[in-house]
C-alpha cells in the first residue's frame, strides 16, 4: 500500500516537473500527428463520408482548433487597421473570421479526403520560435502535388499555427485587400457584419 502511494507520488511529481513540460511536441511532429489523426477520422466517419459539413466542423473544432492562434491570424489578415480596433471589435472579428476559416477548412478536408500527405524534411535551430512545416498533398489524377505549409510560432502553450499557405498562397493574408475594402466602406463593424453574413449563408447551404 505504501509502495503504491509512493509510486503515485513519484508519477505525479514526474508529470508536474518542469522537465516534462519543457518537452513539448516539436512543431513538425505536431502537424503530422494532427493531420494523420484528422485524416484518419475523416476517412472512417460515415457522416463525413456522406458529405456532412456539420460533422467535419465538429471534428475540426475538437482536433485542429486548439493548435491554431486565431487572434494572430486575424491580426495578420486585417493588417494595419487591426490596431485601431477596440478589444471588443478584435474579439468579434476573430470569432467571425475563425468561423469562416473553420468552415472553409472543413469543406476542403471533405473535398480532399482521398489525397495523400507527404511531409517534407524539417530542420529547426535550437531556440527558434517561428518555423514553417512543409507538406505536400498528392491528388490522384493531378500532375503535381500541392504544397501545404504551416507557419507556427512558439507560445507559452506550445506551438501554435498562425498561417496556412497553399501552393504559395497564404489563406490568411490573402484576405487583406478585401478586408481593407470592407473596413474602408463600413469600418471594423462593417467587416464583422460582412463576415457574419457570409458565415450565415454558408451555414444555410451546408448539409
Amino acid at each position, binding site marked *: 500500500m505504501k509502495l503504491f502511494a509512493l509510486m503515485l507520488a513519484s508519477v505525479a511529481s514526474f508529470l508536474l516537473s518542469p522537465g516534462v513540460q519543457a518537452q513539448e511536441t516539436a512543431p513538425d511532429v505536431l502537424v503530422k500527428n494532427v493531420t494523420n489523426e484528422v485524416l484518419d477520422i475523416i476517412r472512417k466517419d460515415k457522416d463525413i463520408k456522406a458529405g456532412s459539413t456539420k460533422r467535419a466542423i465538429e471534428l475540426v473544432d475538437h482536433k485542429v482548433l486548439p493548435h491554431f492562434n486565431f487572434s494572430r491570424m486575424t491580426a495578420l489578415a486585417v493588417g494595419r487597421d487591426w490596431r485601431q480596433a477596440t478589444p471588443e471589435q478584435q474579439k468579434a472579428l476573430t470569432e467571425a473570421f475563425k468561423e469562416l476559416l473553420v468552415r472553409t477548412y472543413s469543406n476542403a478536408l471533405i473535398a480532399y479526403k482521398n489525397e495523400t500527405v507527404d511531409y517534407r524534411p524539417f530542420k529547426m535551430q535550437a531556440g527558434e520560435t517561428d518555423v514553417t512545416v512543409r507538406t505536400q498533398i498528392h491528388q490522384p*489524377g*493531378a500532375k503535381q502535388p500541392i504544397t501545404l505549409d504551416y507557419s507556427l510560432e512558439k507560445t507559452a502553450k506550445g506551438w501554435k499555427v498562425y498561417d496556412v499557405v497553399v*501552393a504559395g498562397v497564404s489563406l490568411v493574408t490573402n484576405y*487583406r*485587400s*478585401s478586408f481593407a475594402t470592407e473596413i*474602408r466602406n463600413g469600418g471594423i463593424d462593417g467587416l464583422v457584419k460582412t463576415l457574419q453574413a*457570409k458565415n450565415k449563408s454558408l451555414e444555410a447551404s451546408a448539409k
Partner: protein
Amino acid sequence: MKTGLSRQISKLAIAVAAAGLLGGCATSGNPKDPIEGFNRAMFGFNEGLDKVIIKPVATGYEAVLPSPLQTGVSNFFSNIADLMIGVNNLIQGKPAQAASDAGRVLVNTTMGFLGIIDVASTMGMEKHEEDFGQTFGRWGMGDGAYVVLPFFGPRTARDTIGLVFDVATDPVSHIDHIPSRNTLLAVRVISDRAQFLKADKVIEEAALDKYSYVRDAYLQRRQSLIHDGNPPKFDPYSGSQDGKVSEAPQEGTSAAQVATRN
C-alpha cells in the same frame, strides 16, 4: 489552358493587355491593379465562359473517365510541358534542374509510354514548374500591372509577355495536322480544368469577393513560384510587398492560375 489557344488569340490578348495598360481606369484597392474596372469585366467574361462551357465539360470528364486514365492524360501533357520547363530552368541559370527536366522527358517518353506514366517521379526526379514569365522575373523584370486576359485569365504585364513566349514555344500548337492539334489543345484545357474543380469550390466558399481573392492569390502564387517556393517573408504590418524582384508568372498550369482562370 494557358498555352493552349492559337496565335491569333495571343495577339488579341496582347492588344487587350496593351489597351488596358495604356487606358487604365483606376478603381479602388490594390496598387497592383490600376485597371480594376477592365479586369473585373474580363473576369466576369471568363467566369461566364467557364460556367457555360468549360466547367460542365470538365465535370463530365471527371465523372466519366476513370481516375487512372485522367492521370495518364494529365501526365501526357505534363511530359510535353517538361521540355520548355527544362529550357526555362536552363536560361534561368539552373542547369541541374534543367538536366533533371531533360531526364524526365527522356525517361517518361520512353519507359513511360509517351509520357502517360510518370516513371521519372517514381525515380525521384521531381517535377518543376517554370515558364517565361518566371524566367523574366528571375532576370529582374518587374511584374507591372495586374491584368485579366480573356480566355487566359489572370496575369501581370510581365506574365502576359511571358505567355506570348509560352504559346509560341508550345509544342502542341506546332502540330501541323490542325484537327489533331485542336483536339489536343481542347483536351488539355479540360484536363487542366478538371484538376481544379475542388479548389474552385473551396475558393467560392472562402472568398468575400471572388475577384480580389483570385487576384491576390495569383499575385502571391507567382511571387512564390518565382522564388521556387521560398519567397522572402514580408512584414505583415508593413502593408504591400513591393515586388521588386517581383511576383511572377506561372506556367501552363499552376493550380492557382487555373483556379483563377476558371
